[in-house]
């Protein structure tokens, strides 16, 4: 069962639920941020949105919600955790993923389709996807500029690894294809063990043909297979 954590201000919680439960047929349950148990969830999703209004710094206040203690224990025990957009920001603030997400270089909110290239199949959300695969995935954020920070994500995977990079349709990680100024065009990362994943793009928005895109299913399916 997938536990979808509902922080105050989360707004993609229903979308994650819809994609997981209605589109992919997995069982799912909302977990209210004041709960102190994950009630037997086998997978955890921290959905997108504006937890606590994104006030102070995005993800900074949500990190202290009561449920986060359980999420940390679950992650430490190797359970698969997927943070999407705001969920990614929360995982970074909580120190479960290396780095930090800063204000977009262009300073504006950006809602658009991007292309991303799979860099590593070694994570709970990319297992089974071959490196080099190009996916079209939507983004919607004002603070998605990934920064490793000193002591953050390194090249050899000791602190974590890069999963996705923004690229053009042909898979080239050009500057023009970088929507927010992220260092190294990084769009998604995993922790060292690969069970905790953060993505700025929204796979749940790209899971149904009627919405014009099904590339995100591959990520969600990989995650559910874990």
């Amino acid at each position, binding site marked *: 069962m997938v536990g979808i954590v509902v922080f105050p201000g989360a707004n993609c919680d229903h979308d994650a639920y819809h994609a997981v439960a209605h589109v992919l047929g997995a069982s799912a349950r909302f977990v209210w941020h004041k709960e102190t148990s994950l009630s037997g969830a086998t997978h955890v999703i921290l959905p997108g949105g504006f937890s*606590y*209004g994104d*006030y*102070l710094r995005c993800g900074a*206040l949500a990190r*202290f919600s009561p449920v986060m203690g359980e999420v940390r224990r679950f992650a430490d025990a190797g359970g698969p955790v997927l943070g999407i957009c705001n969920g990614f920001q929360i995982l970074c603030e909580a120190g479960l993923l290396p780095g930090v997400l800063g204000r977009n270089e262009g300073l504006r909110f950006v809602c658009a389709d991007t292309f991303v290239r799979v860099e590593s199949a070694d994570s709970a959300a990319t297992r089974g996807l071959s490196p080099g695969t190009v996916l079209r995935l939507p983004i919607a954020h004002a603070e998605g500029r990934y920064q490793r920070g000193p002591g953050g994500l390194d090249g050899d995977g000791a602190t974590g690894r890069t999963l996705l990079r923004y690229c053009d349709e042909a898979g080239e990680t050009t500057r023009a294809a970088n929507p927010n100024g992220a260092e190294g065009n990084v769009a998604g990362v995993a922790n060292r063990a690969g069970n905790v994943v953060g993505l700025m793009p929204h796979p749940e928005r790209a899971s149904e043909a009627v919405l014009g895109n099904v590339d995100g299913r591959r990520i969600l399916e990989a995650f559910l297979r874990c």
Partner: protein
Amino acid sequence: MQARVYVTLKPGVLDPQGNAVRGSLEALGFSKVQDVRLGKYLEIELAETDPMAARASVEEMCRRLLVNPVVESFRVDVPGTP
């Protein structure tokens, strides 16, 4: 020379960020926090040696760009000026 600018919300103007921070600090057990107001802090590096001229110029920047007079007020700090 470096000038420092402190931009704060005018009294009475709602500060959603400050409120949220206060709530979180309370939840973290900082029980003595009564109020939090969140503002901006700018460090401006200027090619200017005259402190009074620097201050005048920075105040002008505040009025024209840095501060939204509808909801904010500001204070400028330039070493060597009152």
